[in-house]
């Protein structure tokens, strides 16, 4: 098996970073449950999906998460933090 190229869209960048995804997009400020944007915002959803797929052809660093901003989304949310320490 050669493997299948993947790109992740994550709204929990710190949590996802721990798994070192090959390619990943964090649409900044999107809340959990809104990976592509809000319901019915098809133009925004298309933009996010084009950007995510676009990472397949860009020279990204494996394990790195790319943050992009989408002002059309509206109200921004803080992503969940990874707890540190034991």
């Amino acid at each position, binding site marked *: *098996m*050669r*493997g*299948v*190229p*993947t*790109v*992740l*869209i*994550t*709204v*929990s960048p*710190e949590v*996802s*970073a*721990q*798994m*070192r*995804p*090959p*390619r990943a997009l964090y649409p900044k400020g999107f809340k*959990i*449950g*809104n*990976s*592509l*944007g*809000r*319901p*019915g915002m*098809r133009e925004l*959803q*298309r933009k996010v*999906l*084009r950007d*995510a*797929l*676009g990472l*397949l*052809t860009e020279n990204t660093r*494996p*394990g790195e998460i790319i943050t992009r901003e989408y002002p059309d989304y509206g109200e921004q949310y803080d992503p969940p933090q*990874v707890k*540190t320490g034991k």
Partner: protein
Amino acid sequence: MTLSRKCVPFTPFDRELARSTIAIVTAGGVHLKDQEPFNIADELGDLGFRLIPPGVDSAELMVTHHHYDHADADQDINVVFPIDVLRDLEAEGFIGGIARKHVGYMGYTMQLKAMYEGTAPEIAAEIDKGSRADAVVLTGG
């Protein structure tokens, strides 16, 4: 933050997007309304996954997942499973086509080893054989 010590499973992409077929794999608990829902009663999580056909009517999809608020996905499944969005990108020529298989699973488990060594390679095998996907978009909740 602790990083995974496993190597990054990076597979190069050496194609043009406009000639590529794309599959969606989501951890957002998406499945067809007539498929068995994920078992949210089991505190250990559900290790299963559901295959979603490419021609699916997005109104026939639903979410069974109790570890994120899926009210928005209930209104528009495309916020976690962008099948209609993918169709738009195919229509505009940004991608070449839509894969023959897509996958929904419930991205919550206390059985990490079973998920990593069982479910994940099973999903990868489904995509690898018969989906004709050149690349996969992964989404969470």
